[in-house]
């Protein structure tokens, strides 16, 4: 299927062009002159993508041709925004991120190399689930755990800090896909109707309650509303796809809302987050500062944006942030402020295209596990984008998850390229089987 690989190669060209143009624009803004360095950044990026493309061509010739270029596009977009922040703040975020991108692609290759038969993952599903839960709890451990804005999101080991939730999301999706593949029939057959609502059988309800419990646990102990929402949404999506019972989703949502309501009234950090979401003006220079500044910066953006590298990120003449965490939480705001509603829509459209290709992989897959795994991975990716974009636009309370591949952060890059590797593995097998007429 070299045709699809050629399409992939072709799709990478605009990505490299975008990156070159973006870097050139930052250069033009800051030095009023164009140096060939920006051009070489584009070429360098293209070279790395080309190497990856050749690797995919050899190892996964049948895989979906658009997923990798789309993810490379998001990464390139993030790199340009980070480079623009570097130019203003003298940081080296873009270089770090580029390094993480290379490491991410190496990991991508490693996963493809060793998990060509990804069904082995099914065998270790409980181990994977346990490791994932362990990762989620790690930020609460003494010494290595660290707290950011009241949420326990990271662990730090010496100079390296890491957001374990990023990796855990893949592990948990693998577990859920595997578990539901095996139990979905039982969940449907044994279901009972009570008061007009179909309930899953009690025997099989246990593990699902565990997942719900895990989500609640995360809310209470990790205090991370964003990750909790993201995991639980992926869980409900998988339940729905696996069983076709919308009532299970409704019950799950009711349970989540009930739990969230209790936690809202008992865990002060969650209470603050929600209250600030409902009325950020109650503390405009404190807890409400970030979300208000996000809204104000978007208002400055308008339809077409203020122009590249034109938005104010720090208070002029000081180091005080005007867009707090512009490189992570508020990167979508920064994009909206500089490229306007159109730029924002372009980003959202790109995520939607990734989701479309991801679900396409799930549609083409032949076995239940592959279908559920592709669905779960795609959903968790798309929902992560929803949670953070929704957070900065005040659709939901603002939380600290990253905008996949765009936000600064090594763990996010690594996790998402593992996710991409798995999707391409599923895709390659499905399309090969389709071609061979199985």
């Amino acid at each position: 299927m070299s045709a699809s690989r050629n399409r992939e190669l072709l799709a990478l060209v605009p990505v490299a062009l975008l990156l070159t143009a973006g870097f050139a624009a930052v250069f033009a803004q800051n030095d009023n002159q164009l140096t060939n360095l920006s051009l070489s950044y584009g070429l360098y990026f293209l070279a790395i993508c080309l190497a990856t493309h050749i690797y995919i061509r050899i190892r996964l010739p049948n895989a979906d041709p658009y997923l990798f270029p789309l993810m490379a596009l998001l990464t390139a977009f993030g790199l340009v925004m980070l480079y623009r922040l570097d130019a203003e703040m003298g940081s080296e975020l873009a270089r770090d991120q580029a390094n993480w991108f290379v490491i991410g692609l190496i990991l991508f290759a490693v996963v493809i190399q060793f998990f060509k038969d990804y069904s082995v993952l099914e065998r270790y599903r409980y181990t994977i689930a346990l490791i994932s839960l362990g990762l989620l709890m790690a930020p609460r451990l003494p010494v290595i755990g660290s707290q950011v804005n009241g949420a326990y999101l990271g662990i730090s080991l010496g100079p390296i800090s890491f957001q374990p939730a990023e990796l855990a999301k893949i592990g948990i999706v693998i577990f859920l896909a595997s578990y539901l593949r095996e139990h979905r029939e039982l969940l449907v057959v044994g279901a009972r109707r009570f008061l007009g609502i179909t309930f899953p059988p009690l025997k099989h309800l246990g593990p699902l309650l565990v997942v719900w419990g895990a989500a609640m646990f995360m809310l209470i102990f990790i205090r991370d509303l964003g990750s909790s929402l993201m995991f639980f949404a992926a869980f409900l999506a998988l339940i729905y796809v696996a069983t076709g019972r919308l009532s299970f989703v409704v019950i799950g949502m009711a349970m989540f809302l009930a739990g969230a309501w209790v936690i809202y009234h008992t865990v002060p950090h969650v209470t603050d987050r929600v209250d600030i979401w409902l009325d950020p003006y109650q503390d405009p220079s404190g807890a409400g500062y970030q979300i208000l500044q996000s809204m104000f910066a978007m208002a400055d953006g308008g339809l077409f944006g203020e122009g590249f590298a034109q938005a104010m990120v720090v208070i002029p003449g000081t180091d005080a942030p005007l867009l707090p965490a512009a490189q992570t939480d508020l990167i979508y705001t920064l994009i909206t402020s500089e490229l306007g509603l159109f730029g924002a829509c372009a980003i959202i459209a790109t995520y939607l295209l990734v989701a479309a290709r991801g679900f396409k992989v799930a549609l083409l897959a032949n076995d239940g596990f592959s279908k559920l795994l592709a669905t779960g991975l795609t959903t968790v990716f798309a929902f992560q984008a929803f949670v953070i974009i929704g957070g900065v636009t005040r659709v939901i309370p603002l939380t600290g998850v990253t905008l996949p591949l765009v936000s600064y952060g090594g763990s996010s890059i690594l996790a998402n390229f593992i996710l991409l590797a798995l999707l391409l593995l599923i895709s390659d097998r499905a399309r090969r089987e389709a071609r061979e007429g199985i």
Partner: protein
Amino acid sequence: MNARIVKLFAFIGVSFAVLVGFTSYWTVFDANNLKNERVNKRPLFEAQQIKRGRILADDGTVIARSVAKGSGPSLRYVRDYPEGDSYGHPIGYSFVEYGNSEFEAYHNSELIGDENEFSSIIDELRGKKPEGNDLITSIDPTAQQTAFDLLGGQPGAVVAIEPDTGAVKAMVSVPPFNPNDVPTDFSALSADPSRPMFNRSTQGQYPPGSTFKLVTAAAALDSGAITPDETINSPGSIDVQGHPLANDFDQDFGDINVTTALTNSVNTYFAQLGEKIGTGTLEDYMTKFGFNSKPQLDLPDGQMSTSGVFDLENDKLLTGDDPIDVGRLAIGQERLLATPVQMAEVAATIANGGKLMRPQIWDKVKDPDGRTVKTMDPEVQSDVISEETANELTDAMQDVVNEGTGTAAALSGVDVAGKTGTAEVPDKDECGGLPNQAWFVGFAPADDPQIAVAATVECTDGQGGTVAAPIAAGVMQTLLGE
């Protein structure tokens, strides 16, 4: 499972549509509200990055300029006022933390260059930061300084207007403030009981006393209620609305015409004249002179006061329909309050043959390359009285200076026309026991008026003729000498 996967994708599509919806709301539909939000400092920071234009006096003296601090993305401009407190009023200040005031506030959009959208787009394409326009005022630095010197620290105000254009040549309020001190001493300046940040020229509401007799005389002559030669018997004391009203020293003037009455500022004459023309007519003429609404100066409405008859207890402006003692109003009493700029407008109207020109402080707008973009076009604010009436009043006002209460305003070689006023301050205790608000309004030369002035001194034991007249004369002499 495939149908359910498609449904799931549809659900994600809807979720993303919600994100697009919210983003559109903040970027487009609610953007203006957000930009005007009080806690949103972005517009201020943006303004700070624009090189605000300079403000100049009519001879090119730099009153306000922007000084660059820092460089690159942290470049910002801070306002500097080289002349210190000389132009604190009416120019005001402009600082990110404290906002804009007075002239700086009124002309903000020109000073930050909002006016020329088109050239700013071109500049942006050229990578050039937008720059504001320079504003040249009509203020004469020498006259401004003379007014300060002659007030000599006495609280009060001086306003000088060119009668035929409305150009403001001097506007002084004492005590003054130095706009350079605003960033460091804002709260101290605001709390200072002597109110240095209060522009007495435009905000100070004072009883105008006998200077208001000009308005009464103008209304009577112009409406035809009296002829110039018609006489009214003016005894030492009369009863007005059941209360006695007397001349100074109870002097009996007998049968006198309006010129004699103005020259000697005869209370009993004007009280009767007021009752003769009635509240309605007097009110109409007051409105034409500019009373009963904010001055049409190029200053923010919030920093100007209305002149008129006030019910002070309810802070309400009274109209001709309210019960007003017109006899006392005619002599500048009866809860009548006027700003110095309003009284300068009265003098300027008579000087300009009965036409009130809209008073303006700005004269020209120049773009950063020095090209004149806009020039003040003199505009008639209202046709107040006929030229004939104006000439009759001018003659009477010349008598005031030549032989009446205003002799201290006389200048050698130039005929001055004017009117003095000495009002009782509403609250002596606030004035440290000093009883009078002294006034002089006038113009010169009487036959070809070049400048009209109102000068007032708060809380003095002197009279309009002794305290205010010499100040007005000095300012007129300075402006005519150039």
